[in-house]
Every structure is written in C-alpha cells, then in structure tokens.
C-alpha cells in the first residue's frame, strides 16, 4: 500500500515536471510561436513514471537481502574472470574482420577508437587522479595537426603520427603547467574551458583551419609505402597482392591500424604502471601531500601524466582524421570528452580491461540503440505514432544521458573497480619486535 502511495506521489511530481514541457509544445505558426497541446504524450510519460516507480519499489522490498550479498561478488568475479576475458577479447578483436561484414568492422573501428581514447585518458584520470574534462582538445590537436601537415606539406600518415603525438603532448604540457596547483573540481572546470577554447579557436581561425567548413581530402595511411587506392595499379595494396581492389580492404586495413594503435596504448600504459613514474602516478592519485613529503616531484609527475595521456589522444585524433578523410570542429565537442570520461569512470578508474568493456558497452550500445530506434521508427507506420516515429533517433542521446545517471547510481565504482596498485607487496610479513629496535628499521 505504501508502495502504491509512493508511486502515486512520484507520478504527481512527474506531472508537475512534464505537463509544461511535454504537454505544451511551442510551435511556430504564422503569427510567431503558439502552444500546441499534447495531453496523450504527457499521460504516457506520467504513467511510465508511475509504473517504473512501482516496479523499483516492489523489487527493492523483495531483493534487498539478496542484492547485498551479490554485489561484491560481481566485481570480484569480473576481475577474476579477467584472466580469461582478456585473451578472448583479443582473439575476437583480431578475428572480427573475418566476418567480412562492413557494418561490424566499422562498429569495431569506432569502439576501438574510444577504447584507445579511454586508455589514454585513463593515464590522466585513472592513474594520476587528475580529473580532465577537456580530453577532446588533444584529440582535436592530433586530428588537425595531421590534417594540416598532410594537406599543406603532403606528408603521409605514418610520418605525421608521431608529430601529431608530439603536438598533442605539447598541448597537454601547456595545459598542465598552469593547472598544477589546482585540484579536483577546479581542475575539471579549467580543463573543460581549455577544451572549449581549442574548439572556438578551430572555428574562428579560418585562414588556418578553414573554420566550420573543416578540412577535406585528408590522405589514407599506406602499408609500407603501398597506397590504398581503387585503381589497382602497381603501387597500391591491391596491385601488390594481385587482388581485385575493393572498399572493404580499406576498412579492414583501417581496422587493423586502430587495433595496433590501441594495443600499443595498452602495452605502453601497462609498462608505465610498473615503472617508478607509474607508481608515482598511483601514489599521487591516493594522496598528494604524502607524495610531496616522500620526495616525489609532483610537478613533473603531473606534467608527464598530462603529456603522455595527450600523446595517445593525439594518435587517436590522427587516426580519426585519416579514417574520416574529413574533419571539422563539430567532431570535437564537449560531449566527446564526457563520453570518454564516462568510459573511464564506468571502467573502474585504472582498470585496462574495465575501460575496454565500458567502451564496448557504451559505444556499442549507443550505436545499437541508434539502429534499433531507426528500425523502430520504420516499423511505426500507423498514424497513431506519426508524430514520434521521425523523432525516435533523437531519443538516443536522451537515453544515453539517463543511462549515465542510472549506471552511476547503481555502480558508482564502475564495472571493474581495480584500485589496487600495480605493484604491491604481496606477502604481509610479521616483523619481530627485536628487529624494529634502533638502527635496524
């Protein structure tokens, strides 16, 4: 009974929230705007809130004891299963192009780009604990430096890739220097502002970046000097291997390029974590004051985190530019930063496997949702849904935002919460009191 009353109250609040914005639509008519009534939609939304609240309440009262016992088990199980999941994922990633489906390879390329961005940002946020909301700036710097070098000086992808990384690292250090003293949320807002500054500059510096129109005709990467071209001549991949040129070859090639780049990111960060630098990052994340008193150079540690994180952002940006063959400032909005940060946080801050899983869930889920919604829109031909069918794809980002909130509320520590340091003393040793005497340590 209390559940029913509670659900009724929620529905009442929902009515207050949604009656003005869903029920009254500002529509442009002949004499300016006028209001259009939409009572059915309001009723549907309020009804959904009522039912949803009822379901949540009934589940909560039934499953409280059970869920408490199950929760830590899941996190443990995932990190235990990591031993088997990692090689499986790797095999799946290598084998994906053999499906031959263009759709899956394209989706895989997109997911891998985000995995790489996630691993890059993981160095800054997950390891060093520096909250960065402007990671897309380095992505943009990488993409634009490759695009400009390629279109102005005719340099190839593999020449520009390290340059793009260097430029991005430079941008990272440039951002890192002023924000050294900031912490937590202040850092977040400054990095956010930095990302926006880069975007505004890209839009307005028309003579260099061609402004909002973007840069077109960015070349594709080559395979040891062999070009990806449709004519099948002697200097191309198709000509060298003596096969018929096809679009799918380019897509598969790009897929393996990003797979290689992502694995490089993973390998480098795994190695870095075992180095003194990586350990300093993790120590910094846990306690900055303690780090300082133990003689760690906090300034250099932070700057290297920003710089190295930015390098991988730059690499991913260069790849993005070469894959799309076209870039514009529109691709580098705050929503990208937010997505990548959400991947890192959902992945459990610091866990390599968690980031990969989170990217697959989020980016894969988002794309699947897009297809599902447009499919649903096509199915709803009846006049009853005429208003909503064409709008359905717009619901994608709405669902994405809600999913972020729900995932955070349900699993605030992410899918895999791996906060254990990379290098730890495994055996706890008991030291006898006589050994701790003066001079012995």
């Amino acid at each position, binding site marked *: 009974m209390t559940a029913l009353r509670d659900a009724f109250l929620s529905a009442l609040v929902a009515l207050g929230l949604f009656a003005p914005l869903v029920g009254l639509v*500002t529509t442009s008519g002949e004499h300016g*705007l006028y209001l259009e009534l939409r009572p059915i939609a309001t009723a549907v939304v309020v009804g959904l809130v009522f039912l949803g609240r009822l379901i949540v309440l009934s589940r909560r009262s039934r499953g409280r004891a059970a869920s408490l016992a199950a929760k830590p088990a899941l996190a443990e199980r995932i990190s235990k299963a990591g031993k088997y999941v990692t090689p499986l994922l790797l095999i799946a990633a290598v084998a994906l192009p053999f499906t031959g489906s263009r759709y899956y390879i394209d989706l895989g390329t997109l997911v891998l780009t985000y995995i790489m961005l996630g691993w890059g940002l993981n160095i800054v946020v997950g390891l060093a604990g520096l*909250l960065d909301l402007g990671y897309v700036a380095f992505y943009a710097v990488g993409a634009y430096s490759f695009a400009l070098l390629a279109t102005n000086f005719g340099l190839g992808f593999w020449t520009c890739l390290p340059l793009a990384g260097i430029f991005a690292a430079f941008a990272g250090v440039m951002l890192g220097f002023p924000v050294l003293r900031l912490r937590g949320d202040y850092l977040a807002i400054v990095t956010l*502002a930095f990302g926006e500054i880069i975007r505004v500059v890209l839009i307005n510096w028309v003579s260099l970046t061609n402004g909002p129109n973007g840069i077109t005709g960015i070349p594709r990467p080559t395979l040891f000097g062999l070009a990806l071209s449709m004519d099948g001549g002697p200097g191309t991949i198709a000509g060298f291997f003596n096969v018929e040129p096809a679009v799918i070859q380019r897509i598969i090639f790009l897929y393996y390029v990003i797979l290689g780049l992502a694995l490089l990111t993973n390998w480098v960060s795994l190695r870095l974590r075992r180095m003194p630098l990586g350990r300093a990052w993790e120590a910094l994340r846990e306690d900055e004051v303690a780090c300082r008193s133990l003689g760690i150079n906090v300034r250099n540690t932070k700057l290297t985190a920003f710089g190295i994180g930015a390098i991988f952002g730059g690499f991913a940006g260069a790849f993005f530019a070469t894959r799309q063959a076209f870039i514009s400032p529109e691709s580098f909005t705050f929503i990208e930063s937010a997505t990548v940060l959400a991947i890192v946080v959902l992945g459990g801050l610091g866990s390599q496997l968690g980031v990969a899983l989170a990217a697959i869930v989020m980016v894969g889920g988002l794309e699947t949702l897009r297809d599902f919604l447009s499919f649903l829109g096509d199915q709803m031909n009846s006049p009853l849904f005429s208003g909503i069918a064409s709008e359905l794809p717009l619901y994608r980002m709405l669902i994405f935002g809600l999913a972020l909130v729900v995932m955070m509320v349900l699993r605030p520590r992410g899918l895999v919460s791996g906060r254990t340091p990379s290098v730890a003393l495994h055996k706890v040793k008991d030291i006898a009191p006589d050994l701790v005497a003066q001079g012995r340590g």
Partner: protein
Amino acid sequence: MAYALQQLINGVTLGMIYGLIAVGYTMVYGIIGMINFAHGDVFMVGSFLSLIALLGLAALGITSVPLALALTLIFAAGIAALYGWTIERVAYRPLRGSFRLAPLISAIGMSITLQNFVQVSQGARVKPIEAIIPGGIQIMDQGGFAVRLSWMQIAIVVITMSILGIFTWLVTKTPLGRTMRACEQDLKMASLLGIDTDRTISLTFVIGAALAAVAGFMFLLYYGVIDFYIGFIAGVKAFTAAVLGGIGSLPGAVLGGLLIGLIEVFWSAYFSVEYKDVAAFAILIVVLIFMPTGILGRAEVEKV
C-alpha cells in the same frame, strides 16, 4: 565615452543574469562540494518554462504586462524548483558519500538528459519572441551615437535586485538560512547537532533552481530568442563567475557575474565577438592560477 557607457549598461544587464546562475553553483558547491553540472541546463529549462508561460498567458488573454511578468516568474521558478528537487533526489542523493567522481559523472549525465529532453519535447529550432516591454530612454547623445537604456534592461536589473534581496534575507535572517550556513561550514557537525541535512541540501537545490529559472526568464526577455543549447555556455560562464567571486561566497557570485558580464561585453565591443567565449574562459584560467580563492573567497585550509 558614449560607446563605453552603452557597453557598461549592457554588461551590467548580462552580468546580473550570470550572477543569478552563479549563486546556484556557489551554494551547492559550498554545501556538498560538487559542481552541479546540470545547473546550466536548469537555467535553460527555466527559460523554456518562461516562454511557455508567456505564450500560455497570451493565449488566455492576459495582456497586462506586470501581471504577465509576475505570473511567468512564479510559474517558471516554481516548476524549475521542482526540477532542482527531482534532480537532487534522483541523481545526486544516492551518490552522497560515494567517491568524488561519481556525482560529477551523474551530473554530466543529467545535463545531457535535460538538453536532449528539451530538444525532443520542444524541438531543436530556436524560439524567438517579440519584445514584451518595447522602448526605452535615451540618456545621452554624443556625435550621433545615442546611449539607450531600454525599459527591458531596467526591468531586468530591478527584478534581479529584488530577487537577490529576498534571497539575501532568506539566507541571513531566517532559520532556513541559518541551517544552510551551518551545513556549508560543516555538514557532519550540522547533522550531529540535529539539523536535517538532507532536507537542507534539497532546499538548496530548490532555491538554486528557482534563481536559475529567474535568470532564464531574464535571458529570454533580454535576447528574445532561446534554444535547447543555451545552458551549456551560460553554465560554464556562470561557474567561472562563481569561481572568480570566490566559490562558496554568495555576494562573490553576484560580483563575479557582473565582472564576467562586463568583460564579455567589453571584449566583444573592443576586440572580437568571435572570441568572447575564449575571453571568459581565459579569465577563469588566469584567476585560478593567481587567485585560486577568488575575490571574496576564503582560503581553504588543508588538513592532513
């Protein structure tokens, strides 16, 4: 001279709007130490609510301007307050005491949700309205450049000042304000002393959202055109204002808002309109480097 005076008038008007939003940021940050990322979008929702109320009142045949303004203000502030309450209840309260990044991500999710909710429900096109209070007075004329002070600007400044007056009274003189200040000083201690902290935090969100809605209404009156994306940039600028004034300080938020408004308007007038957002953000970075506590803020003592 005349040109500068005109910019001063425009800057103060814009600064009032930023100040109102900044108060919401600074209150929430002061009490629970999180950036309420969705606050800018509550401002946007408030703006849309005002538009809907104005159109609804016009459809009902209410033509008296002061009555329409008052009713719109109450409607927008009331519904936006409900939004603030719901957001806190749904997205932030379950995460209280959780680790630092969780509420921030949740807030970003809420911001994306609100933006796309308004886009889906109200359409992506810009919404223009006619000026509600046309006309104004001419203050001075210098070499053909007339300095104008429109009735709209006067209305904005007067309404903002009175709302801020009520708000100041609320915070300094009422029991509610006292509990809010207590929670700001020390949340744990306040709860030990029998203050219902959950309720106080809820009320903080309610008041902040109502103020943001007033700012949204003023924005609609001033520019006459809104869309679903205005919340993001306005939100970041208002947060900049809160930081500039010293986060946690209520007069500081208004002062910071005024400064940001003035800087933006003067930068657009004398340097370049395209880079006005860069100016605001660059100031944020410079302030944080050289004056991390802001103008009226307290230095944070770090305990180990």
